[in-house]
């Protein structure tokens, strides 16, 4: 079976590294990209895309819409703000799951494959 691929879009080096490690532990082949790279179609469409909702100068909702115009992969939004609005609007904007920090690896795994946690 092919190793599933994931893309991590986060302009924080720390949060990108932590998420990459968590996804690698779940068996994903992970690439880390910047928000700017997500504005164009990706050369290698991933199976899963994890987007940070509130970046320094990026807006995760907009990036998500952009991504969904080009690719049909599973999208997970990650939010550091713990707001219910993030979940509601994230889902309305097309996210398959919205994870509020703090989350466990199990919750990430459930969101990545689409199971209710």
């Amino acid at each position, binding site marked *: 079976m092919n190793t599933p691929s994931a893309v991590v879009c986060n302009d*924080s*080096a*720390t*949060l*990108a*590294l*932590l998420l990459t490690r968590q996804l690698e532990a779940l068996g994903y082949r992970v690439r880390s990209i910047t928000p700017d790279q997500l504005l164009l179609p990706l050369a290698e469409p991933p199976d899963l895309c994890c987007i940070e*909702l*509130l*970046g*320094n*100068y990026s*807006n*995760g*909702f*907009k990036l998500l*819409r952009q991504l969904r115009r080009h690719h049909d992969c599973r999208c997970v939004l990650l939010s*550091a*703000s*713990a707001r*219910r*609005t*993030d979940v*509601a*609007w994230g889902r*309305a*904007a*097309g996210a398959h799951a919205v994870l*509020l*920090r*703090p989350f466990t690896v199990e919750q990430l795994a459930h969101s990545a494959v689409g199971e209710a946690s």
Partner: protein
Amino acid sequence: MTPIAIGEARLLPALACTLEQLLLQLTDLLRARGSRARLAAELALCSSRLAQLAQFLPAAHTVRQQVSHVDKLLPALLQPQETAVQIRLLVPLWRLLQILPAGLPDLAPWRRAAAARPAAIALMASWWRSQQLLAAAPFSAALHDLMRQLATVVRSGAPEPAAIAVVLRRWQVLQTFGGDSRQLQHSADLLQRITLVLLMPAVTTAADAGQCWLQLWRLTQQQKLPAGDTSSCDDLALLQAVQTDLNRHRCQLQPFLQQAVAQPDTVLLPQPLVMLHYRLPWLLQAAGQYGLARLAHLWQRGVLLHWQLRRPLTPGLIALLAGLSALLDMSQWRTLAAMQITDVLLQLLQQWPSPQPHGVASVPLCIGKAPASIPLAGVPDLLAQSFVVLNRADETWFISGAAFACHAAAIAAELQLLEQGAAAVKVQAVERFCSLLLALQHKASQPMQQRDFPAQLLWRGHCHLLELLDEAAAWQDPQVDPQLMAELQTWQQRGVHEPLPPWSEPGAPAGMALDELAQRLSLFVDKLAETLEHPLRFSMSIAPALPSTLLPLCDTCLQPLLRFLVLEQLQETTLRRQAHRPLAISLHLRLDVGDDGVMVELREDGCERAPDHQALKRLRHKLPPSVQRLLWRTLAGSGRRLYCVIGE
């Protein structure tokens, strides 16, 4: 003059009492609370009273000598100083406390605190305010009392940060007297965790919260606290990433801090910096700095509250922000103590902004067709869940008039809710853009040639609306594209500068005359909106059986009526804003055939007040005599209605 002999037993309590007042003033001065000039005057008053009292003591009495030192040093204390200099200046005050006799039991804890902590004076003053706590009671009884206070705060449901700060500050001071230094560190660590459990339950797990309360229970039972979180992380790659992020954070913060220091009390935190603080706690947590992460959580929430209330940061908060920025330097972490973090955390809670006094508890929104009262705080959540159609729409919906007609009603319903919601939470960019889209879509729904249908413009407007909503949902300031806005306005105002067309020749088909009336009235309202520079929405339902001979008369009578209603409502713009209602004025006209002529019903949704007598008198003067039986009705929750009959 020979001093009157007063017994030392009476004199020293009076001295202590005056000293208390002096310390309280000094605390406020050190914390930069209140006017420096006023505090200085009050301090000087206390100091001279101290000196007067000390005059009654023998010249060689050590208390009298120390009072004399305090009096001399006070002017220097009033000047802004480095903390180290201030502490040196406070030495005579401490000595004075030390030498006051043990016969004054209330002063004992002051002396110990003064010896133990650099910020002792501030602590001592807050201690003095709650002097019933310790002096006579044993340590454990005081601790139990504090826990009871904490439980009361928790039971209140929505604990106020300032109230929590008061209780926890007492706890901290109590620990200063009661525990050893190791225990003190653990206690400070527990205090941080409890603050987070109380104020930010969303970022603490249930297990962590349970452990906090268990430790608190142990503390009240006089059991030693277990060691707190360790603050070590030996993952070099991770530490390097954290360092990169923290350095970037500090670089972005620095220009703001420089500006804020230059213009205290006026500078508002910019939105990108508010966003920047969201990730800070998680960065610090990744580096194993749990104490700092807790502080950053609280700090982020405080910053957000200031930004939401549009309040500038106070000098105290700017100083705290500068302090926090310094703590993000990794080289500081080796010497960072839990007490230090707790101190900043409590200062932050004490400066927490109070909620808006004139906040509106709920706002009227129409969900579906039914008007409802929604709590203001719940509006963003409601909006985020409500726009299924707007999010689902694709380009094919806007490709032609026929395609658009299938979805127009559903889109308009969501746009109207959005307009009301945006007005309620005062996101004016979204509200105005929504009003414009509603007007544009209403106009696009009128019969027209396919080549005139603004398919591309509607689609671009829709996409831009979603962008604005994405920005608002991320708490960014939505920025309307001015070029697109101008294009939409130009299309929406097409023909508005042309004169009203003349009536067609007598004998024209009735259908055409009805269309003419509708067209002339729409154009009239558009012209009015353009002249007043105010969004107006106008819809009509006209009975087909209306006699064509009466239509020009209807046109003549309805124009002054519409103008009157719009101008009337315009005067209430401020009231509408205060009631969190949208700016756009919405009018609906219904014309039916009656026994005596044309029956008119004009509905205004946003206003529930009948015009006063004078205004009605003016209106009657402007209306032709053919307008009869003018009647007003106001309906709670559904605006006001005007009825009249137009007949020859």
